[in-house]
């Protein structure tokens, strides 16, 4: 884990240092003269050699002191801390619903494999997948928020509970709709792979009913790739969450990053990249531990 973190830090540093624009110029804004820019450069320590700057960067990472946003002058760590809850309020229900719905759907489709139902589902999901997520949100917002008025189109409050009932449902619902298609297909593939294994034949030879074969033998074994997928897919749940935040004006991490990107607010972007990398690695560790519970063949180091 540590070497990876070092790598991420290096990646972020070099990306922004060598390819990004001069921060001093960005901060100074348009219409600043050379003297002003030089002054800011000195303040930011940009006139020092790059390895010194790298060292400063590393120190910032380790001490979690990222300075302040160039745009709002808010402390970056504060930004992160205050925006995280909103992202989680969307992400957690989203992940749970996704898995809980896709499992029975995938299982059901695998059970009726080859039949007309299976084929109809596959075609529907293929078409559903070809429509951009954006379209679903645009239409969803318009239909449920604007036309029918069931949910507010945008908004957020300070109260988590209220958020869950009032503001979270529409975005979560739309995201679940979109992800159901690919998840179901994926889980179907996992189940079909397991059905092809020899131990299923043994179970049938013992007289186990087809239903039990699916629900007991196959499901248990399929949990292994499902867990893998969950673990590797967790970081990409962020993708959906980010876009939802932008659409629904939810003050979460994703929206913050997008704002930072548009404003070239480097400290925020750098900090978030490193923070989220750490979060991802922690999630991976948890997934590895989860493996041990599901697959007795795994030996933890």
């Amino acid at each position, binding site marked *: 884990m540590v070497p990876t973190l070092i790598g991420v830090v290096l990646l972020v540093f070099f990306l922004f240092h060598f390819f990004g624009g001069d921060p001093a110029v960005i901060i100074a804004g348009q219409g600043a003269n050379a003297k002003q820019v030089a002054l800011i450069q000195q303040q930011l320590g940009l006139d020092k050699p790059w390895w010194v700057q790298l060292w400063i960067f590393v120190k910032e990472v380790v001490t979690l002191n990222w300075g302040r946003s160039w745009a709002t002058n808010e402390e970056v760590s504060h930004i992160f801390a205050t925006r995280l809850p909103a992202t989680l309020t969307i992400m957690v229900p989203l992940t749970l619903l996704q898995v809980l719905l896709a499992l029975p759907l995938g299982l059901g489709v695998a059970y009726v494999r080859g039949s007309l139902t299976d084929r109809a589902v596959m075609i529907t999901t293929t078409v559903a997948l070809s429509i951009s997520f954006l379209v679903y949100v645009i239409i969803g917002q318009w239909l449920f928020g604007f036309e029918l008025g069931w949910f507010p189109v945008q908004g957020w409050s300070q109260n988590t509970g209220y958020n869950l009932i009032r503001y979270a449902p529409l975005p979560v619902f739309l995201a679940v709709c979109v992800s159901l298609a690919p998840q179901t297909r994926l889980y179907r593939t996992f189940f079909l792979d397991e059905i092809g294994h020899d*131990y299923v034949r043994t179970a049938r*030879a*013992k*007289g186990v009913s087809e239903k039990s074969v699916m629900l007991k033998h196959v499901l248990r*074994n399929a949990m292994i790739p499902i867990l893998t997928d969950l673990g590797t897919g967790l970081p990409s749940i962020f993708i959906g969450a980010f876009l939802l935040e932008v659409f629904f004006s939810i003050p979460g991490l994703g929206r913050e990053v997008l704002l930072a990107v548009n404003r070239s607010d480097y400290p925020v972007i750098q900090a978030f990249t490193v923070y989220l990398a750490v979060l991802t690695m922690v999630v991976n560790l948890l997934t590895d531990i989860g493996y041990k519970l599901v697959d007795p063949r795994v030996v933890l*180091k």
Partner: protein
Amino acid sequence: MTTLLSIADLRVSFKVGKEQPFEAVKGISFDVPVNGTLALVGESGSGKSVTAMSILRLLPVTAAISGSILYQGSNLLDASSERMRELRGRDISVIFQEPMSSLNPVFTVGDQIAEVIRLHEHLSRRKAWQRAIELLEEVGLPEPKQRVSSYPHQLSGGQQQRVMIAMAIACKPKLLIADEPTTALDVTIQKQILDLLARLRESHQMSMLFITHDLAVVGDIADQVVVMEKGEIREQGPVQAVFHAAKHPYTQALLSCRPRLDVRPRRLPVVADYMQGRILDANAPQRTPRVDGEIVLEVRHLGKRFELKDGLFSHSYFDAVKDVSFNLKRGRTLGLVGESGSGKTTVGLTLMRLHKASAGEVLLKTESGPKDLLKLSEHDMTALRRRIQIVFQNPYASLNPRFTVAQILTEPMRIHNIGGNERERLELTAAMLERVGLSPGALWKYPHEFSGGQRQRIAIARCLTMRPEILICDESVSALDVSVQAQVLNLLLDLQDEFGLSYLFISHDLAVVRYISDEVMVMNGGSIVEVADSDTIYRDPQNPYTKRLLESIPKGLQGLAIPAVA
């Protein structure tokens, strides 16, 4: 009533995409006796497994079955799914060939045995678990009380098969179907499992339907035998009658073409001989082992150690090959025999520098004196590679599926500058193909169009294009059907006579090694435990491991006369 199960005019065909359905079984009939063992014998593609699986309707959905399988007065093929589920595991059970993949990896052994008990006998969990422990004891699994809560991957192959057997006999079935249960096991373990099955069959008064390709095993354990080829029955009857007086040429061929321990004909009879009615001389002189000759390859203290990383800082190691030394003589065959994990394959691969050796020297005789192959640079080694070649075990994996035969055969020639231009090379390869018994038209085909035996011939041809002196045969015939095996062994012997090749013949099959070798080395746990010429080692083994190996060989074919004419 002496018949338990009666199969009449069984036909099974498989739908393969839009093409014609493939007929695996073309109308066969036989009876399984009560309280006896019937062996279903055939090579790959004979339809024996398909026949057995159709009894319990365990075939894939693409299969179309017709005919009748009469059990207790009704046709099983007409039975409902519920009836089939009742019968499975209770009246009729199955054990399969690969125990590792046939057991569910995420459930304990005890759970899996208890499952079948609770399905059919409605015992409580605790009682079922107890019963599982008793069963494990009955099948001879050591420490049953501890083992019952272990997972399949924690057991060895033989132990896993015992667990499968325990699951199968748990509800006291009337018929046990055993689908090649010992094919994947070492020969010493095979003997134990076969003895166990015979014992259980006796004590439970069951019938057994035993599927195998090995006639020697049939001779040991079966009362009745049914011989199948290409979906049809060629011959059936009591084992003694069929073995001693086989009527069908195919049966005669199967019985004779397997190398035996007691006789060693100049050439193995093959199926074609019998089908075409050739006369074989039963009194032809036997081959005798020759131990003289000039030494072409000298191996001294060869060692191979595998390092296993146990985390960041700790290392454990495993010595696959320990201090192996031997000499290979020109034009002679040195056999290397051992069970899985003995290190025999590693010896071959290390000689060829396909594994990096940890110790020792491999001295190859050259004009400028003996050279140690292990110490040469890559460049020097490449030049010498043409002198030692290797034929691998798996004919389906040793040829590049995306190359034509012509490409496969001309590549080594190009590397070693044999043949001036492409046309010359193609002519040489065409000649080589004919030499190994294939038509030159094969040049333009892809490997998947050939059978296993044909692919091995192509692999041998590939080696021969470089005119090597030494050929390492790493289980080269082990994956082939018995009749094909005989053909390839004959080919190897002919090539040895014509080109003066020296062979290092590695195999787990003692009968084959004994047949083809002049001298035999026995390997166990990475070391050579005995070396002797191939007559002495079978007549008068010294080492206890060698003796155990010899005792484990099925003797079912001993003492049979080779029919002289079909």
